[in-house]
């Protein structure tokens, strides 16, 4: 089977390299839309760093959304929204 054949769940190393980082602020970068990371240049002295495959970042983000949805449902059966975007 060639590397181009698609199979759901198939691990292909080249797919797991995160995209290049975009700078958001002096201290924060972004590799995936709305997924912010502290600039690794600020992290290296006191925390051991490792390469993070894309699927692992996406897993953490999905787990975060799962958690927030669970908290919403702890004390209420629904969510009421103002129905408005930001004023600014």
């Amino acid at each position, binding site marked *: 089977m060639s590397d181009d054949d698609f199979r759901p769940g198939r691990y292909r190393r080249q797919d797991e390299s995160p995209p290049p980082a975009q700078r958001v*602020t002096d201290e*924060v970068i972004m590799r995936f839309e709305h997924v912010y990371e*502290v600039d690794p240049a600020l992290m290296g002295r006191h925390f051991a760093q490792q390469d993070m495959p894309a699927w692992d970042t996406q897993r953490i983000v999905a787990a975060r959304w799962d*958690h927030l949805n669970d908290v919403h449902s702890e004390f*209420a*059966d629904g969510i*009421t929204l103002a129905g*408005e*975007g*930001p004023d600014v």
Partner: protein
Amino acid sequence: MSLAAPTIDSGVLDELRAILGEDGAVLTGRSARLNRARVPAPFPVHRWAEHVPDVVVLPRTAQQVSEIVKLANRQRIPVVPRAGGTGLADGAVPLRGGILLDVKRMDQIKEIDMADRTVTVGPGINMQTLNRRLKRYGVMYPDDPASYACSLVGGRIGTSGFSLLGGRYGHTRDLVISFEIVLPTGEIIEVGDGGARKVRKSSTGYHLKQLFMGHQGTLGVVTEATLELVPRAETEFAAFFLFQDYDTAHRTFGELARSGLATLAGVVIFDPEKVAYLRRDDEAYLSQPEWVHAVTAASLYGTRVEVEAASKVVMALGRSLGGKYIGDEISSGDWAARHDRYANPLHGRASDGQVVPMSWHCEDAALPYSQLPAVQREWHAIAARYVSKYEIFDDWGMFAYTNGAHKPWGDVLVEIDMGLWEERLDEDGWRAFVSLKREIAQAALDHGGSLTACHGSTREGDAELVPIEMGASWEVVKQIKRTLDPLNIMNPGKQMLDEAYADQETTA
């Protein structure tokens, strides 16, 4: 770390094993003892061994707890109760070794009474676990601390905890109807508002429930609690508003707190230092405009018809002094993130900007609403002196929350969050931390406040100020402690209560 062997003799260990009667209920191993020495708050890691208990016991029944406490009295051994160990004031931290009584095996739901709307539980149950069992009945136990997912009912009673939904549903002291407690001498009693287990309001006798609420392990061990059942809310609503300055955010906070909305669960305010901290790397605040220096938010819970109408009032009041709505997505998401501080690894910044691992110090107080701006300035001025002098501190900003159950308009819970770099801690740094705490606590007293709204005042730094806050009533407090605990067995060394035994030789 070298760790002293248990100082309790083998005869006492044999008696404990006989009382508990099962394998694994009496623990003397290194990890069992070390892991129950501290709580999440900053800890003197350079003196860890001083706080390690001699033995850990895991009882299942009130009778077993009673027998353990009676044994401790005979042998004059300190007893320190521990539930989730998630507190921020060292109530569960042993100061003089002894028996650490861990209630985690007392985690049963004993009765769900849908007629009288109560649930009776052991002290070792967690609120999230309880609520997931209650959901099928359409009811909930709405005690919602930041530690919701990991704290236990026994610890909530021990600290007289604060609920983030307290404005709507009440705090721990309002939601616990009655409880069973093993006194320091081993007797088992029930305390409530009067003597009935399922009655919310009584005029019989003294209201002993409130005497034991917030006991911090110094007046006994809670072994069962009967709790309020509340109808599950049909819906929740949260709205966050952005401000250019703290004063306007504070006045808007007051407008919302005084709104009279019965569904109002709470109002919260972030100060400029908190917003600056969040701007470092928080997804919700990175993208906010530069002019944003304060945030005020409100939340509602109840039936849909109530909440939908009240939400329009909140939106109008939030904007009434110029506040700008942050939008639906961040409002609902940020409100759901209210427990994050207990779930996320904490980090701060060294003076060169490098990210460093820090533990979280959260100093709380209760203040009159009017005093909040002045205390906000004073606390940050105190913090700034310590941050500039010691590399181990980082100021993470302040927030305040409506404090009164069902009466959210008059006073506030206020907290300053600070990072503490424990890896760099030595005795000089620890003394600085204690001094920092004391200055912050003194400022709260100077402004007519109380040392703590939710954590308790059992830590070095603010414990010394308890007699000052209590004034003439401190003598009564000491008499109560000595009467109920004549040998100072229960959690000795906490909250200056050793003063009650100044004229006698005691265990501790």
